[in-house]
C-alpha cells in the first residue's frame, strides 16, 4: 500500500477550565501579565456591554441583537493579535475584536438599532462591516488578502466564520483560493456548537472543523476557544506566518454559544439545559480570572471596580445611541450610487415630498 499524503490536526490548549496550566511550553503572551490583564479587562467589558444590549432589546430599545456571550476569549484574541492596517472581515457577533479595533459600542447599537450609520464606524476604515449573508465575508477577506499580495503590502486579512458557516461554499472557496494563491488570510472558525438550532453534528461528518483546511492545503489547528492564551498564541502564529508570505491558515476555536442565537431566538426549544450548564463550567472569563489571580495579577476588588467602570462606560455609549436621531428620508437614496442618477433623483424628490406631507 502506498501513501500519498498524511496529516495531523493539533489541538492547542494552555489553560484548562479552572485556569490551570496544562503544559509548560508557554508562549510569550502567557507570561506577559500586564497584557493579559488588559485583555481580560476587554473580555469583561464586552460581557458587560453584551448583557446591556440584550436588556435594551428586551425593553424595545433595540432591534434583534446577536449576543456574543461565551465567545469573548476568541474575539479578544483575534482583535488584539491584529495590527491596525490588517483587515478584519467579521460575521455579526465579534464585538470583542471590533471594540479593540476602535469600533464604538454606540455604532454597534446603531447597526442593530436599524440605522446604517452604525457601519460607518470608528474602527479602521478598511475593515468590513457586519456581514449577514453567512460565510460571504470569508471571500471578501480573501479578496483583501489578494489586494495585499498584488500590492506587495505586508498586511493580513482575518475573517471569522461559524461552525454552521463552515458548511457554506464561500468558506470553502476562500480557503481554497488562499491555498492556491498563497494569500495572507487567516480564517477562524468560531465553533460554538450551534447554528441557530442545528448542532455541529448535523453540519458535517468531519471530526474537527479545523481539518477542513486540509482540503485547501492550508495549515490548520484546533484551539480551545475559551482559552485566551491558546487563542492568542494561535492567532499570533497564524498572522505572523501570513504576514511573512507563508500563506493562509484555518483555526478552529472550540467554544460555546451561551446565549440564544439572537434575541429573536429561544434556545430552550432545541437544546438541553444541562449542556448549557456544563458549558458554563468551561466559559472563558472564569478561567482567565483564576489564572490571573493565581499570578497575583488581579483581585476581586479590581474586578468589582472594573465592572462598575465598564457599566458606566457602556451607559455613555447607550445614551449616545438612544439620542441619535433617525436619518432623513433622503438617506434612503443618497448612498445607492456615488451620485444620485437622474432617474432616481425623481423618486428621491417624491419621497421627500411624501414624507413632508405625512
Amino acid at each position, binding site marked *: 500500500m502506498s501513501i500519498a499524503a498524511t496529516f495531523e490536526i493539533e489541538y492547542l490548549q494552555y489553560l484548562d477550565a479552572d485556569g490551570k496550566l496544562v503544559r509548560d511550553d508557554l508562549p510569550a503572551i502567557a507570561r506577559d501579565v500586564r497584557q493579559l490583564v488588559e485583555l481580560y479587562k476587554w473580555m469583561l467589558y464586552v460581557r458587560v456591554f453584551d448583557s446591556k444590549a440584550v436588556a435594551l432589546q428586551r425593553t424595545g430599545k433595540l432591534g434583534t441583537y446577536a449576543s456574543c456571550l461565551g465567545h469573548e476569549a476568541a474575539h479578544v484574541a483575534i482583535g488584539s493579535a491584529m495590527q491596525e492596517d490588517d483587515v478584519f472581515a467579521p460575521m455579526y457577533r465579534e464585538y470583542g475584536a471590533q471594540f479593540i479595533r476602535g469600533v464604538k459600542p454606540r455604532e454597534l447599537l446603531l447597526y442593530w438599532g436599524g440605522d446604517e450609520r452604525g457601519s460607518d464606524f470608528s474602527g479602521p476604515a478598511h475593515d468590513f462591516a457586519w456581514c449577514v449573508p453567512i460565510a460571504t465575508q470569508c471571500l471578501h477577506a480573501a479578496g483583501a488578502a489578494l489586494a495585499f499580495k498584488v500590492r506587495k503590502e505586508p498586511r493580513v486579512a482575518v475573517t471569522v466564520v461559524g461552525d454552521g458557516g463552515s458548511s457554506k461554499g464561500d468558506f470553502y472557496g476562500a480557503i481554497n483560493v488562499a491555498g492556491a494563491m498563497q494569500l495572507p488570510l487567516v480564517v477562524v472558525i468560531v465553533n460554538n456548537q450551534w447554528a441557530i438550532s442545528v448542532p455541529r453534528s448535523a453540519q458535517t461528518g468531519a471530526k474537527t472543523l479545523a481539518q477542513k483546511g486540509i482540503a485547501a492545503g492550508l495549515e490548520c489547528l484546533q484551539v480551545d476557544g475559551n482559552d485566551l492564551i491558546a487563542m492568542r498564541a494561535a492567532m499570533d502564529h497564524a498572522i505572523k506566518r501570513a504576514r511573512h508570505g507563508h500563506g493562509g491558515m484555518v483555526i478552529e476555536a472550540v467554544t460555546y454559544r451561551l446565549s440564544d442565537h439572537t434575541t429573536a431566538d429561544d434556545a430552550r426549544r432545541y437544546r438541553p439545559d444541562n449542556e448549557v450548564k456544563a458549558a458554563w463550567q468551561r466559559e472563558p472569563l472564569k478561567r482567565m480570572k483564576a489564572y490571573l489571580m493565581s499570578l497575583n495579577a488581579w483581585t476581586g476588588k479590581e474586578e468589582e471596580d472594573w465592572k462598575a467602570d465598564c457599566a458606566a462606560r457602556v451607559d455613555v455609549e447607550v445614551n449616545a445611541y438612544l439620542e441619535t436621531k433617525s*436619518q432623513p428620508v433622503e438617506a434612503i437614496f443618497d448612498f445607492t450610487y456615488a451620485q444620485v442618477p437622474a432617474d432616481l433623483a425623481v423618486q428621491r424628490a417624491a419621497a421627500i415630498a411624501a414624507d413632508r406631507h405625512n
Partner: protein
Amino acid sequence: MPQITLIEAVTQALAYEMKHDPSVIVLGEDVGINGGVFRATQGLQKAFGSERVIDTPLDEATIAGLTVGLAAQGMKPVAEAQFEGFIYPMMEHIACHAARLRTRTRGRMSCPAVFRAPWGGGIRAPEHHSEANEHLFTNIPGLRVVLPSSPGRAYGLLLAAIRDPDPVIFFEPKRIYRQYKEEVADDGEALPLDVCFVLRDGGDVTLVTWGAQVKETLEAADALAEQGISAEVIDVATLTPLDFDTIHESVKKTGRCVIVHEAPRTAGFGAEIAARLAEKAIYDLVAPVERVTGYDTHIPLYRLEMKYLPSVERIVAAVQRTLAAS
C-alpha cells in the same frame, strides 16, 4: 373550524400534504426541532420524523441542489430559504436545473419541487431580511412564482404548489404572517395557480398588487370608497405564468390601473403588468398607468423602512392622479 393565521395555514398545508403523500419532504435550515425561525414547519418533524423533515447543513446551494436531485428521483421536496435574502445561492440550481430538467430531457425528468421563502419588509428585521426580490424569478421560464396574501390562499396555493408537476417559488409575505386569522378548512382543497384573485369589485380604478401590499391596497380601497371612488382590487397571487385576462377585464371596466408592489420599481414585476396594458389595453385606458412601489434603492434598515414601503397614502395619491388625468 379553527381560525388560523397565514403562517399557520402554511404549516397546515405542509402537514396535510405530508400526511397524504409520502413523497413530500421538507428540508432547510432550522426546519426540524425548531420548526423554522418563523415556525412555519412547527411540529412537522415530530409528526413525520427527521427523515422527512430535514435540517440541512448551512449552505443554500446544497439545499437547492439536493432539492433538484430529490425531485428528479421521485420525491416532492419543499425546500426553505430562511429568508428571501438568502435565496441567491440557490439561483444556479433553480435557473439552470429546476426550471430546465423537463425541457432538457424532453420530459424524461422533471422537478416537482417547491422553494419556499419568507419575503418582504416591514418587520423591523436586520439587513437582508426584508427584500422583495420576486423579480429574480419572473423572467425564468419553467417556474411558477406564487405569493399568497391571506391564510386561505396560503393554504390552497401551497397545496397546489406542492402538487404542481413543475417547480414553484413560493414567497410568503412575512409582514402579514400573523396579521389576522381566518377560517381555513383543512380539506386538502388546492387553489388554482393560473388565476388572479379579485378581492374587491369596483368601477373607477383597478388596483393590482400581491403579497403583503394587499393589506395597504385594500385599506386604500376603503379610504377611496369614503371619497366616493370605487376601486377594484386584484391580488395577482401567481405572478408567472401570468393571468393577464383578469387584469385586462377589470381595466376594460375601469379604464385606470394602479400597480402596487414593494420591490424596487425599475424592472419590478409591476413593469410586466404595465407593459401588457401598453400592449393590449391602450384603447381601454383613460389615464396613464401608475406604479406605487419601493424605490430604486435597497430597502433601508428598519428605522426608515416604512418610508420605503408603499403606504396607503401613496396609493390613494396615485389613484387620485389617475382620476385627475382624465
